[in-house]
């Protein structure tokens, strides 16, 4: 037991930070807010060369086979720099392909992911934004060697940039075993697909995607027919905890900006950082971020060690949702008026952290998942021992 970073982990984090400090300015971040695909392809290529896209993929597919904790450290730096990269959507989808794809599909796509040649994403949510299987209505009907998809998806990350999209479809009744869902890897440029950009607080890439008689070959199904939900849950848990690390990186940067500001901004003949009201606020901000990091990395560590981590993922996200928002809000408050001027950079972090907190499970959803595990399963709970997963 040693919850501090090892030398190797520190190196991965610091080289990622150095790289992004050199390559990703806030000018670039601003530029991408109005870009049709929302990411610079040169930076994406370089990120792949840094090994980020294939970090946790097996060496057989060109990856480095590193633990997920390392990916968390990189995502933290991506969040810190607000790097406009489809990294989260690509790596998480690639892990699902690794888990549930045919060998042919893995050979075709995973080396391309590692090389930075493809962008991947996934589509789960529809009108009802909860992460529950019964919210999925998009249908997939078998037709010979193909499935035909009809329906619409919401909040699809980086869809406009994507080459392939993992689509969660209903193939059987919601009351059936495993909730009757199947997963298909669809070519994003297939006939019958149309998309429109949603305008978000973060000014990032979120699409509504409509599927109108979209044909996808059977070989592009991930996992078993009607058996997609467990795999999707895994994907969602990984995406959620990685989003936490991304949020935490951004939030820590935002807090550091406020602390630096407080050290030089003067009022009443003092740097405002000498006042206890400011000092105590800053102390609470750092304590919150530290707490979030510990929760998120424990979840990733458990995944790396093959342990159930659903409760841990929910702990991290529910905590980060509320604490990260509180930190960036306090940071705005410490900055005063300049903090919400368009020309000043702080809002870039504020708008993203708040928007990210709304995705991949609200505080209420995650806390209900924890409450269910704590209260609805017989047997005593002991802090520090795993809570039974249901």
């Amino acid at each position, binding site marked *: *037991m040693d919850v501090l970073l090892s030398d190797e982990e520190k190196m991965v984090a610091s080289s990622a930070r150095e790289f992004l400090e050199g390559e990703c300015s806030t000018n670039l971040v601003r530029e991408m807010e109005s870009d049709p695909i929302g990411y610079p392809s040169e930076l994406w290529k370089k990120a792949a060369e840094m090994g980020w896209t294939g970090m946790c993929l097996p060496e057989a597919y060109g990856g480095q086979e590193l633990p997920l904790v390392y990916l968390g450290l990189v995502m933290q730096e991506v969040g810190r720099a607000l790097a406009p990269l489809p990294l989260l959507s690509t790596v998480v989808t690639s892990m699902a392909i690794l888990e549930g794809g045919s060998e042919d599909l893995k050979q075709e796509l995973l080396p391309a992911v590692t090389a930075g040649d493809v962008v991947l994403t996934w589509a789960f949510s529809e009108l009802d934004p909860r992460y529950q299987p019964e919210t999925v209505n998009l249908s997939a009907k078998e037709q010979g060697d193909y499935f035909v998809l009809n329906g619409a998806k919401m909040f699809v990350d980086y869809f406009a940039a994507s080459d392939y999209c993992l689509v969660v479809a209903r193939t059987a009744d919601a009351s059936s075993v495993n909730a009757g869902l199947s997963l298909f890897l669809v070519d994003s440029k297939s006939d019958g697909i149309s998309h429109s950009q949603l305008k978000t607080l973060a000014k990032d890439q979120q699409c509504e995607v409509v599927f109108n008689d979209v044909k996808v070959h059977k070989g592009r199904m991930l996992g078993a027919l009607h058996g997609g939900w467990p795999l999707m849950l895994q994907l969602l848990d990984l995406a959620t905890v990685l989003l936490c690390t991304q949020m935490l990186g951004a939030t820590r940067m935002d807090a550091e900006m406020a602390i630096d500001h407080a050290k030089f901004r003067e009022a009443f003949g003092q740097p405002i950082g000498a006042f*206890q009201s400011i000092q105590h606020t800053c102390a609470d901000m750092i304590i919150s971020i530290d707490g979030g990091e510990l929760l998120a990395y424990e979840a990733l560590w458990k995944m790396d060690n093959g342990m159930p981590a659903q409760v841990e993922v929910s702990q991290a996200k529910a905590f980060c949702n509320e604490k990260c928002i509180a930190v960036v809000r306090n940071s705005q408050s410490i900055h005063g008026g300049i903090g919400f001027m368009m020309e000043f950079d702080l809002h870039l972090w504020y708008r993203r952290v708040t928007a990210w907190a709304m995705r991949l499970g609200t505080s209420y959803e995650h806390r209900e998942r924890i409450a269910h595990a704590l209260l609805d399963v017989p047997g005593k709970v002991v802090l520090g021992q795993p809570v039974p997963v249901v």
Partner: protein
Amino acid sequence: MDFGFTAEQQKLRQDLLDFIKQNVTAEVIAEMDAAEDEMESSGQSRQLGHRGPLVSALFKKIEERGWFGYSYPKEYGGQGGDRVSQNIIEEELLRVGINIGLAGSGAPAIMAAGTEEQKRYYLPKLIKMEYYFALGFTEPHAGADLAALKCRAIRDGDHFVINGQKMYTTSAHFATHIYLMARTDPDASRHDGISIFIFPMDTPGLTVRPLWTIQNNPRAPRGTCYGDARSNEVFFEDVRIHESCLLGKENQGWRVGSMGLNLDRVGASRYLRSVRRDEDIVNWLKSNDFGGHSPAHNPAIRDKVAEMWIEAQVCRLMTLRSMSIVERGGQFSYEGSAEKVWSPEHGVRTTEAITQMLGPYGSLLNGSPYAVEKGVFAHNTMGAFQSGINHGSVQIMRDQVAKRGLEMPSLRRAQKVK
């Protein structure tokens, strides 16, 4: 990063659980309770007098298993083991009300600043709980601002003569020794004229008077966060001690003291104090209801239970972080202070939340008809906030996070506007 325990550590925990099941019987607990009652009323049960035959036998068994002072070096009576294992031992025993933890014992400071002779004399006895220190820091006008302390030690050849008063000296009525912070150079700056002395409580001129806390009558049930019914004032009237009682160098007591305080904060006891109620309420809700209606079905309560559970995990993880820093032999920057803000405040939040789940039943004290879990939640309402006051208040801790961790500036004197 490694959040797991080794196979040996996991086995150690299982051994402890088995040991506790076999040896910590209701009779043992009853004997401990009776001894504490007696101690509080007489205030004269020093030198192990508070251990009855059953408890003495239990401590003998704990010693035989090598669980005392697990991470302390063998030459000082410890086992030379790792800090994490020591924490496992402390945690499991404390869960059943047996505190063999060395946090708050003065042992970490003696280990860090003591002479070889002091280490060999004190540590083996502290480790086996044969000696116990009262911590003589706070005074009537020096609490949060500890460096304002006035208790005076005047050198007289190779002796010191002490006059003054200490307050809120929690364990003075059963301690064998005192760990005293006193002013040795009134002309030096506030922090530079302080020294630490360690000497027996029965030294002539030292008297102890009880201060009764709000937990007195009825006694708080075992496991309450700060359920102590008694604290004390300690008076020093021409108390004469030899200079060999100095811990660390003369006039350098501030550094020794604050380092000791930081190390004393690490461990199972503060962690458990803050999170025990989270376990209690979940387990209570699972198997109890009010006449058929279970609060566990109320969505608002479920949400709150989960929120508090997450906060409790942060307490646990911050304890592990402090432990990792100690284990690496490192110094705290702000991490110990951060834990000392988060955990006590969580303890308060969760206690308040739980009493709102229980409604008026939450107010029933130990011994009352219908008391929930022996009234532990009502007693915690009187105890949890104390955790945010003593050993460095949460406000002082936030100062330290800001100053040491974030390097934020100090106030300047107001300048005249020209």
